């Protein structure tokens, strides 16, 4: 158990004896069932790659805050049990947030671990440069914050945040960042400017905002410029004679002057139906040409399986490496997201379609939310589809059934 968690739990216990403390406990159960696409070019037998059929997370999140004189303590701690295919069973605990803060006039200073979330969009959020959240993830667990020193100023209709962050998790001393966010709200719009500088990746800066067009319609958008971006590149792409690698064939390649942007519209009808349409562009994702080259390589690698002179293990190992890399970053350079939601009294259905525009492949998520006796249920299915040699058509997973059951105390 990490030291930060022990400290967090200590503070939680202390807060339970403190009359001014505010404490909440969230319990989540998140089972998922996965089905795999045996026709996929990424398909690999189970002995070469982990392909869990059933994953289960049981999560407890304890949040508390309390004041001692002029200092405010805040803790968000997670205890999690993870079961995969009813065999492997791991339990772990960590502090998502653990910080002390002090207010002086309109300034607030904090030291410790804090979660930061920037940006305004729904499907992809380029401005989220401190700790990027995958907006397509199913899990509802809280993120783990970043350690640092924070200064926030809250003025009339604006706020300024400045932070110095040190990434203690990765034990990489060079991962130090300086970041800032300026936020303002006006009559019809919210706007923010973000900036981050790090020793290893130069600077990122961007702008984003929401413009309320009418009672029902809002326009949102964000754009981020990155001086440098690290991209996972397959070293065999573009080579004609070498098809197999003896070691991990991916290496990080530095890409200069990268732009990512999102623009979208949200509409809400008086009957509680809402629609979000969003177009996103990201130069750090693989281009259609790069995906095509990867699919061609995989096809040729699979052709080697019939060659008796080449060990099958070597071929499957190479395919598994590519499958893992693709799983970590399954994005197209241009995406379109359409989300329909109905906020009914008893049931709240949601349909989300993410279309990779270069190849028209799709990720479709159908979900329904329901509350019963203060217990929240979210049940859904995610389906990947598309033609051969397309991003989601070749996805290793074809379907995921999931549920999230949660209760706050």
């Amino acid at each position: 158990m990490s030291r930060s968690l022990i400290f967090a739990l200590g503070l939680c216990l202390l807060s339970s004896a403190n009359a001014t403390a505010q404490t909440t406990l969230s319990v989540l159960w998140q089972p998922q069932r996965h089905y795999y696409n045996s026709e996929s070019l990424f398909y690999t037998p189970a002995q070469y790659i982990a392909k869990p059929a059933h994953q289960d997370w049981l999560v407890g999140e304890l949040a508390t805050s309390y004041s001692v004189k002029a200092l405010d303590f805040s803790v968000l701690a997670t205890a999690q049990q993870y079961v995969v295919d009813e065999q492997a069973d791991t339990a772990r605990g960590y502090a998502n947030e653990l910080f002390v803060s002090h207010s002086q006039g309109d300034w607030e200073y904090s030291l410790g671990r804090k979660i930061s979330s920037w940006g305004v969009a729904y499907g992809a959020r380029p401005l989220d440069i401190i700790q990027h959240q995958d907006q397509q993830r199913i899990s509802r667990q809280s993120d783990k914050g970043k350690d640092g020193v924070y200064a926030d100023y809250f003025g009339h209709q604006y706020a300024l945040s400045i932070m110095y962050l040190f990434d203690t998790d990765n034990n990489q001393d060079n991962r130090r960042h300086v970041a800032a966010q300026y936020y303002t709200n006006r009559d019809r719009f919210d706007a923010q400017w973000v900036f981050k500088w790090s020793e290893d990746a130069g600077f990122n800066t961007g702008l984003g905002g929401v413009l309320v067009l009418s009672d029902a319609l809002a326009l949102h958008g964000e754009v981020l410029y990155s001086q440098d971006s690290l991209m996972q590149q397959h070293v065999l792409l573009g080579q004609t004679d070498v098809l197999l690698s003896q070691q991990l064939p991916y290496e990080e390649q530095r890409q200069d002057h990268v732009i990512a942007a999102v623009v979208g519209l949200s509409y809400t009808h008086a009957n509680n139906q809402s629609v979000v349409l969003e177009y996103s562009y990201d130069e750090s994702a693989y281009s259609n040409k790069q995906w095509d080259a990867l699919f061609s390589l995989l096809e040729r690698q699979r052709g080697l399986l019939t060659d008796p002179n080449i060990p099958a293990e070597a071929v499957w190992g190479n395919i598994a490496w590519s499958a893992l890399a693709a799983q970590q970053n399954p994005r197209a350079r241009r995406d379109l997201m359409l989300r329909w939601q109905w906020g009914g009294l008893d049931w709240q259905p949601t349909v989300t379609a993410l279309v990779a525009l270069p190849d028209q492949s799709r990720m479709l998520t159908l979900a329904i939310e329901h509350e019963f006796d203060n217990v929240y249920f979210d049940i859904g299915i995610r389906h990947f589809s598309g033609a051969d040699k397309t991003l989601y058509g070749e996805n290793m997973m074809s379907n995921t059934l999931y549920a999230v059951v949660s209760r706050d105390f």
Partner: protein
Amino acid sequence: MFKYWLLLSLLLPCLAQANADELAQAMLREADSYRQNSDEVKVSVRISLFKNNELDKEQRYDVFIKPDRQTLVIGRSPLEIGQKVLMLDDKFWLVLPKTKRPIRITPMQKLLGEASTGDIATMRWNEDYKATLSAHAKDAESGLHELILTAKRKGVTYKKILLSLDPQGNQPVRAELYLASGKLAKVANFGFEGVGDQRRMVTMTLRDKIKRSQYTDIEYLSSEPYQLPKKFYNPAYLAKNPRLQL
């Protein structure tokens, strides 16, 4: 001389109309005082949804109101714990405890459970509506006074309200709430407790004109003067401090 008479004959109806409008606005101010009798207050509210006369859902909120249409609504029910809706003028933000960022929302997105934010976030019609006396200022059958309230700003949930007041002290009795489309959305009835200066509104029952089998009770559980620091009305502050001790 004829000019003066002409001018006077034109001015008199205007003056009479101005007097009638001022009277209507004064009646509305008195009606408001039953619900919010201080400029800065904390009001604890319970919203109960009844279906076929049986309790279906219940939600609790604390509402912090400052002058100039500044309201912070904090969810207190298990399902919405830590959820906040901030209203500044005609602007709305939703702050969810796990998102750590303020979400600017359109007025249409500002629903809180079964009641709209406007039903609990604004407790003074006088700040949002222009009152005029209805053509039949006094309903012949009920003897109630009738005011027509017309929205004087964007962002209000109902564009028009027909408000019936008890002639004794202008206590609100019934309100018909109309949407911008002119459609009658809900009918509200009000309940009171106490006598004299201590008399205050304790319930507002909203009946949907479409879903006739259900109704919503808004109970004002407590109301006390409360001064919340101004930084709490900054969306960025709320997002960065999800576990406010209030």
